[in-house]
């Protein structure tokens, strides 16, 4: 992927992230998040991983965001105006903490010297090779995620259904 395109995608992703946290309305945040997730998917492609790029777009930007949108529309929370000096000064604190965290991470990145990190190959990672890894050495975590999803499903059903059971 050409550098210019990469810069564009990166910029969009970043701006979308900014939009997520700064939007007054939750719906806008959710939409910005969708854009952001698509951008991340594109970056995965830039990192030569075909399967995860697609999975990111389908699962994350698709399925998970649907759940978010559903929640947002169900709850329809009030607008939340953003003030830097809001209650207890949390906005300012958050800014400072976040920038501090970035500073620390950036310092870590810049001092630890990434010169030794070289790209492995230019070719795309084929989904088949990832699949054989996933069902080979990573079988147990993979199956674990299945179990986790099942548990989450049951939990969500129970949590959501409690009121009806209680009313019935």
């Amino acid at each position, binding site marked *: *992927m050409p550098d210019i395109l*990469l*810069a564009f995608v990166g910029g969009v992703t*970043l701006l979308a*992230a*900014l939009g*997520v*946290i700064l*939007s007054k309305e*939750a719906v806008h*945040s*959710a939409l910005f*998040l969708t854009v*952001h997730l698509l951008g*991340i998917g594109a970056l*995965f492609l830039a*990192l030569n*991983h075909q*399967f995860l790029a697609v999975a*990111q777009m389908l*699962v*994350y930007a698709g*399925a*998970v965001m649907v759940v*978010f949108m559903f*929640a*947002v529309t169900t*709850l329809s*929370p009030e607008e*939340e105006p*953003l003030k830097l000096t809001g*209650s207890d000064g949390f906005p300012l604190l*958050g*800014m400072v*903490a976040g*920038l501090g*965290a*970035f500073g620390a991470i950036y310092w870590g*990145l810049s001092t630890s010297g*990434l010169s*030794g*990190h*070289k*790209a*492995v190959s230019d070719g795309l*990672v084929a989904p088949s090779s*990832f699949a054989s*890894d*996933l069902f080979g*050495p*990573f079988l147990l*975590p*993979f199956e674990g*995620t299945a179990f*986790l999803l099942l548990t*989450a499903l049951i939990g*969500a059903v129970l*949590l959501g259904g*409690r*009121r009806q059971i209680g009313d019935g």
Partner: protein
Amino acid sequence: MANSPEFFLVLSALIFCLGLIGLIIRRNPLVMFMSIELMLNAANLAFMTFSRFPPANRVSLGSPSDGPAFTFVVMTIAAAEAVVGLAIIITIFRNRHSVDVDALTSLKG
């Protein structure tokens, strides 16, 4: 730029910190969740980056599929977490008719 990890890592760090800031400054739990998604994605991006640009002595650090496998698991977890977390938020909303986290202080010591 595409052939070195710096761009991706700095981007990842920025996104992570934006998620962090969002988590702190927002009072809406839905947006807080979204901020968490931002942080998770930032971590995913870092995983993928290190998978593509491994350190010189990678042999001792695992296989090329480590990063993607982690990312995959994180995606699944994010999905699970979104489902359960949103269900919890909906339950709280039902009980309290408000989703302002500042109002949720029953854990106060």
